[in-house]
């Protein structure tokens, strides 16, 4: 995008929205027999995105270990998913606030301080 910081924020936002999609998928499949909870390795993906300068458009999903498997083979924990749902929304909000401030600075520079 514009500079390194906004590039990094862009990768971060992409990763958060990818993770949010997996959370939505887990919630939708909360009653599907045999379905296993999916997630992305957020830290590792973010690290890789910051190294390469862009988020992987299709990161590999991992199945989350350590969750209790129900009798029908499903291991979706709705508490975990709702926590991640709000956590992702908050992370996304935070990153958009940063990006907004960054864009505002740029706007100030363009308008010679008049638009500040």
């Amino acid at each position, binding site marked *: 995008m514009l500079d390194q910081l906004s590039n990094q924020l862009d990768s971060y*936002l992409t990763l958060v929205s990818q993770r949010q999609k997996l959370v939505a*998928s887990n919630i*939708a*499949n909360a009653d*599907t027999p045999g*379905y296993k909870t999916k997630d992305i390795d957020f830290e590792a993906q973010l690290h890789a995105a910051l190294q390469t300068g862009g988020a992987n458009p299709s990161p590999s999903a991992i199945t989350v270990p350590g969750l209790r498997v129900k009798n029908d083979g499903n291991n979706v924990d*709705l508490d975990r998913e709702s926590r991640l749902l709000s956590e*992702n929304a908050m992370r996304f909000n935070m990153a*958009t606030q940063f990006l907004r401030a960054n*864009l505002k600075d740029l706007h100030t520079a363009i308008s010679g301080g008049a638009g500040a």
Partner: protein
Amino acid sequence: MSLFDSISVSASGLTAQRQRAEVLVENIANADTTRTAGGGPYRRKDVVFESQSTGEPFSSVLQNQMDDQPKGVAISQIVTDQSEPDKRYMPGHPDADKDGYVAFPKVNPAEDMVDLMGASRAYQANVSAISAVKDMISRSMDLFH
């Protein structure tokens, strides 16, 4: 792959849970039905969920090629309970057999009510997911204000 896809995934959850609630309500409504078009008492129905990719035909074909993509949910089939119906001794009943027993559906209203609560909670969870994603989308649109 965008935030809008997350909404499709959650929407598939809404559809599936609503259909499940419809089947459960049908079971409760017919808990005492002794006569059906196919003959015999009403038989309890149950839904089977299956994860399924959502979205456009092209992207779903592409997604099937790539493993582990987020998936929505759909009802793969509705199964009918084939177990023996309950027999109750009611000689005066028009549907009684020659020994005076009437076949009643094997529906346990308590079980269906609990399932219905589960469907309702799962529906709520999907609605929360949609509003969280909707909020994220509007935040990203607010970026340029």
